[in-house]
């Protein structure tokens, strides 16, 4: 069914692209002189905006923190947005497959595409697609963005490079906090619903007790096995974990069951997000999630929503 729906979406896209290409491409880049940047997810467009500063007009395709990005379907308006883009930033690893299809549907050899997966040199079968939680990801992606922006507008190359340096400096708050955290709280046992923040937890030395097969089942919208559910239940009822990290954006009867278990057993909850919540920059968002984790461990405070 999903394949069929995508086929329909692609059909719509083809029409929209044809309309867009015939009409408004010229006006888009010439007018203001700003580089049009589209991020598949809003954390990527945020970083691109930080690097591009006043010479960039950045927007995001997925930015609603209340829906599940895994079930996102591209609409015709998305295709229109993409057709005018000079730089596109996307995640890869199957997380935003629709982007590659849309780009193919509106070929434009001047458009540059930054794929985080390719920047990091990750294979297609990488199990956890939530790359932006890895502290190594954004500095590498930002460097590529700065280089591409410099290639699009060579006269502002130095400007983009200085913004990149500022970005890398501001990332230090979070990465330093991560290493301090690791010294004090390494091996703290936690439970999760999905592997959303797993890269950050790994960098912080946290011990994720939830079976991988359960995380994968919830992430891929399949039913978890009774064995894995029982193992996860035991983590709560036996109070074997200090924190429960739960994906705000993907909830169903299973995740609410675990949320209830953590309330019943006085285990603090930290809500994690797949797309950047409103009112945050990428760095502040990552810092806020780490802070929430830390106060859950030290004072048992729950931060269910940022």
């Amino acid at each position, binding site marked *: 069914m999903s394949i069929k729906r995508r086929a329909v979406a692609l059909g719509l896209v083809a029409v929209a692209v044809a309309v867009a290409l015939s009409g408004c491409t010229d006006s888009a880049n010439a007018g203001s002189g700003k580089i049009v940047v589209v991020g598949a997810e809003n954390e990527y467009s945020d970083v691109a905006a930080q690097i591009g500063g006043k010479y960039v007009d950045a927007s995001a395709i997925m930015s609603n923190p209340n829906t599940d990005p895994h079930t996102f379907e591209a609409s015709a308006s998305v295709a229109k947005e993409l057709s005018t883009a000079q730089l596109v930033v996307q995640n890869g690893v199957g997380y935003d497959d629709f982007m590659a299809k849309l780009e193919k549907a509106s070929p434009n050899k001047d458009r540059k595409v930054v794929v985080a997966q390719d920047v990091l040199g990750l294979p297609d079968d990488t199990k956890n697609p939530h790359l932006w939680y890895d502290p190594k990801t954004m500095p590498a992606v930002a460097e590529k963005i700065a280089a591409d922006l410099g290639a699009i507008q060579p006269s502002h190359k130095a400007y983009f490079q200085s913004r990149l340096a500022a970005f890398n400096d501001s990332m230090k708050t979070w990465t330093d906090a991560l290493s301090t955290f690791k010294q004090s709280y390494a091996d703290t046992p936690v439970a999760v619903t999905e592997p959303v923040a797993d890269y950050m937890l790994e960098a912080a030395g946290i011990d994720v007790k939830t*079976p991988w097969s359960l995380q994968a089942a919830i992430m891929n919208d399949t*039913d978890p096995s*009774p064995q894995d559910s029982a193992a996860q239940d035991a983590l709560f009822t036996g109070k074997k974990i200090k924190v429960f990290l739960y994906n705000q*954006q993907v909830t169903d009867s299973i995740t609410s069951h675990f949320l209830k278990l953590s309330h019943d057993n006085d285990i603090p909850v930290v809500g994690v997000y797949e797309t950047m919540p409103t009112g945050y920059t990428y760095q502040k968002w990552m810092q806020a999630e780490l802070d929430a984790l830390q106060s859950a461990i030290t004072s048992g405070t729950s931060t269910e929503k940022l």
Partner: protein
Amino acid sequence: MTGVQSVHAALGDFLTSPTVHTALIVGGFVAVVTGVVGVFTVMRGQSFAGHALADLGAVGGSGAFLVGISQLWGFVGAGILAALLMELIGIRRIQGRDVATGIVFGFGLGLTALFLYWDTTIGDSSNAAVSVLFGSLFVIDPGVIPTVVVLSVLALVIVVAIYRWLLIESLDRDLAIARGVPVRLAGILFLVALALAVELSALTIGAILSTALLIGPAATALLLTRRFGVAVLIAAGLAVGTTWIGCLVSYESYYWSSRHDNWPVSFCIVALVFVTYLAVRAGSALRRRSMSAAALRDGVPTAETAV
């Protein structure tokens, strides 16, 4: 040795898991009802209506996700409404039956697609599609057990209350009318019982697969016996057996690969239903062949040789 031990350990594990308890209880009740109602359904030639009702229940199931009520009520509510609608359109007439069912059924599936789309885009029930269409016997909330039991008993009571009417009508509709059987009322009541049975099984093994549990054990039982009461008992027994063994197979499949992913329990159940039917079918074909061979030898014409 270690193999025996691990099998024992796994079985102990199976029988002590609370998830499995819920699955066996809910699955067991649903299987009895579907098996019994299935025999009437096959005899009355309403398999397609049964399948359509299950898929129409999916409208309610997916709608329930959207408004955040229990899937069970979504299934049952939509199923009964659909049954009444199909009766209204004219399911009684043989000529109109398939068309009426097909029209309502197609529209229902379309609505299901819309609701599932909203479930994942507006709501955040991302696995609604898997759960509604393919069932999740292992993720059923134990809180629905009493409701499932009450609705199962209700469906059985309806069928028992009207079974004489149904039996006469199935044999000869004109005779039934001549004898004063309220065929219209019987038909409506049966559709309600059928809706209850398929919606309950849609909750457990999914809207798409519940037809298998409705038709499979009943068809198998009717191959094994011509006696109606016995067929009902065999169908119920087969349905319960395949459901429980299906649960066990799905549970055990966790240990078959290092990835620790279970084969869906719905698949295990319908696969067993299918294999059982094929085996019985093959068995009865063999028996018939040896019977007709014996008849030929003895020079006695049988139904088979005559045809």
